[in-house]
């Protein structure tokens, strides 16, 4: 039996390191396109201020990128160190997008980031712009491949179980690549990254405008961020709705939990705006609802049903009972590979094999599972409703609030008065953390909502862990917390310092807050042709 503490600690370590990593990823994904836009304007107009913008925001980009690289390696290691059985069980499918990510995306972004920083004087303007574009393409491609991998965890298509090798094996790479869940996740996630990049530039530019510093520089940055952000926020919300649609097909449980929908409702189902879910009695103590809306979002029709939690629970219980047959047959087949009866039985119950494996949490011999164990395993298939319900709602609320912010910012940009609306600038500044909170909550919904599975319906989280000692887990967790705290201090310190100093940190002599040590290059110090 696998100790539950080991499973919990492994999950905690993965969740902590993944969420920490994702503090840096979205900013990279979005800010890089803002750099592309700024540099394109520079190449087209030849105005120095746009080159300075590219360099200054690029400096902040670099600090963030270094943190993203550092914390990203952890994740690749961790599948092997802490999720060894997972790695064996699904490596045949899951490893491929990871390796392709390295070959196609990491090499691209990591090679060109060097030229982005150090190639200014060695490349023509157009060549350097191409470098920046390839940097952007590389980082966004890496998001594609990792989300193909994650999409497969949510919705494992294009693969089949092989009893001989005791693992899932690839049957169609195209099904994995064009998995609708993965595609919807990709566009939703990169758009969220674009929003993050836009809010970052918008908020810091607003701060300069509030302080009356580097006004021209800040206004130009603000405008670009506002327009880019508006398009991105609209895309996040539209494509978030698209992932809602795919969730209903692949993971009804997650949707029902997000909606605190205990009963299957008459079609089309209503959308619960606010509720107090009561998990013990499986009902909502209080709820405000809008009729029809959920049914429309979830099924794109007015006649398809969305199952409620109680019905899902009953169905999953049946699947666990059928899964017992699958596990039993598999065990017989592992002992004697020529056992035709076992092979036939496994074939019949194969779809429920994962559900049978859920019982391994309670007993090593699933044939001896008591009805009480089966009930507990069935109850496990429903993630806790309250955190999912609220995390989802806060994320959506923040999404709409950011959309509104960008809409106002764009409107006043077009009117030419964005620098004077102090309420707008303050709103932008205070909203700096919003995209990060929304993104972390989004991942929480996606991953916690998939529990108790690592691969939905196929491999329980409980079985996925490495057989390492609990002491090792405490040690590594402590190490990660220590290292990541120190890194966070250094990162935040540098970010705040350079953001405060502003474009003066480039030392060109054209901006406020120059270093003031008389080292600014006198040639470059000529007034900007802004």
């Amino acid at each position: 039996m696998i100790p539950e503490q080991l499973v919990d600690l492994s999950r905690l370590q993965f969740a902590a390191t993944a969420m920490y990593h994702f503090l840096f990823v979205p900013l990279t994904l979005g800010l890089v396109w803002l750099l592309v836009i700024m540099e394109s304007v520079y190449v087209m107009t030849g105005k120095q201020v746009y080159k300075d913008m590219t360099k200054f925001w690029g400096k902040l980009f670099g600090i963030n990128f270094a943190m993203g690289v550092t914390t990203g390696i952890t994740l690749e290691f961790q599948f092997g160190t802490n999720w060894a059985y997972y790695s064996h069980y699904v490596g045949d499918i899951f490893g491929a997008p990871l390796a392709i990510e390295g070959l196609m995306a990491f090499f691209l972004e990591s090679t060109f980031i060097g030229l982005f920083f150090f190639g200014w004087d060695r490349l023509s303007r157009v060549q350097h712009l191409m470098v920046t574009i390839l940097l952007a393409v590389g980082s966004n491609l890496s998001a594609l491949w990792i989300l193909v991998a994650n999409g497969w965890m949510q919705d494992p298509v294009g693969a089949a179980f092989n009893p001989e090798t005791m693992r899932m094996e690839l049957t169609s790479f195209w099904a994995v690549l064009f998995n609708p869940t993965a595609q919807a996740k990709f566009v939703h996630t990169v758009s969220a990254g674009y929003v993050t990049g836009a809010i970052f530039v918008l908020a810091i530019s607003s701060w300069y405008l509030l302080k009356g510093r580097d006004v021209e520089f800040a206004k130009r940055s603000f405008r670009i961020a506002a327009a880019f952000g508006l398009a991105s926020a609209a895309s996040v919300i539209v494509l978030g709705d698209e992932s809602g649609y795919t969730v209903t097909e692949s993971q009804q449980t997650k949707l029902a939990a997000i909606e605190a929908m205990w009963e299957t409702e008459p079609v089309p189902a209503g959308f619960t705006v606010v509720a107090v879910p009561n998990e013990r009695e499986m009902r909502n103590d209080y709820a405000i609802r809008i009729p029809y809306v959920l049914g429309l979002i979830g099924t794109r029709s007015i006649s398809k049903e969305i199952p409620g939690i109680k019905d899902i629970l009953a169905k999953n219980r049946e699947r666990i009972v059928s899964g017992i047959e699958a596990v039993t047959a598999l065990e017989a087949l592992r002992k004697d590979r020529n056992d035709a009866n076992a092979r036939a039985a496994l074939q019949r119950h194969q779809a429920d094999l994962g559900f049978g494996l859920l019982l391994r949490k309670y007993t090593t011999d699933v044939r001896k599972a008591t009805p009480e164990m089966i009930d507990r395993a069935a109850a496990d298939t429903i993630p806790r409703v309250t955190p999912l319900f609220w995390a989802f709602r806060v994320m959506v609320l923040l999404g709409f609030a950011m959309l509104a912010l960008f809409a106002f910012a764009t409107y006043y940009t077009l009117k030419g008065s964005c620098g004077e609306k102090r309420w707008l600038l303050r709103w932008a500044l205070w909203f700096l953390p919003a995209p990060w909170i929304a993104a972390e909550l989004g991942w929480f919904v996606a991953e916690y909502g998939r529990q108790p599975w690592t691969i939905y319906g196929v491999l329980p989280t409980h079985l996925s862990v490495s057989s390492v000692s609990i002491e090792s887990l405490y040690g590594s967790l402590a190490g990660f917390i220590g290292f990541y705290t120190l890194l966070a201090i250094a990162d935040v310190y540098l970010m705040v310092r350079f953001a405060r100093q502003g474009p003066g940190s480039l030392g060109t002599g054209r901006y406020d807050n120059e270093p003031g040590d008389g080292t600014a290059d006198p040639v470059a110090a000529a007034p900007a042709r802004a």
Partner: protein
Amino acid sequence: MVDYAVLKFIWWLLVGVLLIGFAVMDGHDMGVGTLLPFAGRNDVERRVIINTIGPHWDGNQVWFITAGGALFAAWPLVYAAAFSGFYWAMLAVLWALFFRPVGFDFRSKLEAPAWRTGWDWGLFVGSAVPPVIFGVAFGNLLQGVPFHFDDNLVPHYTGHFWQLLNPFALLTGVVSFSMIVFHGANYLMHRTEGAIYARARKASLGFAMLLLASFAAAGIWVAFGVGGYAITAGADPAAVSNPLAKSVAVVPGAWLANYARWPLTLLVPAAGVAGTLAGLFFAWRNWTLAAFVASSVAMAGVIGTAAVSMFPFVMPSSSDPRSSLTVWDSTSSHLTLALMFWAVVILMPIVIFYTRWAYRVMGGKVTHAYIRENRRSAY
């Protein structure tokens, strides 16, 4: 689709290519990083050293990431068993690597000497520790690792962390460390001048000799003191991957059997020795690029020697020999191997093409004047 057995063999070659690529590319960064606190005696010198690899270390590190990803995709059982079994060794590598990305980017952004010196030592740790641990890991692979699979193919490691640090493994750690520093020193010579160049040259000559001595000692030890492994039944190259469907015996001197069976493979250890000798000679004659190429050949020879000696074993088990992982029974499915083969064939040349271009753009000596002119933007 290419035959399954052939693909398994090709993947053994490809993993080797990725490891050698990692050693040649990321290895020279790590060699330079290891020399950083010693070859650079003041801040400007250290910045010169860092900026020889500044534009490239990140791309080079992807060789490591990709090798890890390819292991996951092509040899999932090896990835699972090795990473979980070598838990603390892998974490030590990982935590050492933490110092690199942030070290390069953060170091010169602030002026405070303590900040900069701190990151210099961080870069040293991030550069010196991984090659030592990889060498130690290879030493343990050659001796066999105490692990086994249960009926559900869950890998269980039954050894202890300190067991990894046995005398033979420490010797292979020295082999790995000295080849990386030798290689990095050759690169540093190629990209610098003056005092740094002279120190790099001294390091190159010294570590080349250490590499020769330790590689020879490890070879003798393998021949006379390390029991190799041999498959006695099963492990059909064309069969599906099941590491428990074979039997394996511990046979003294078995690690030399491949050289007797295919004498041409003797060229691999010969390349290790010849590359080192040539690199030593070229460094002494100040032919820097030739020295860099020679140390690349030397590393290919050294890594290849470990691989050829163990073939078809990849990760032998000392506690339950039949659980040993080999080229034939620890790979992905036929379809995944084929898919990943084509991914590598198509994408790798593109990577090499633009990497070469990046080096050409950023080529030439890094000088004190360059650092002074770019004091705000250079690393």
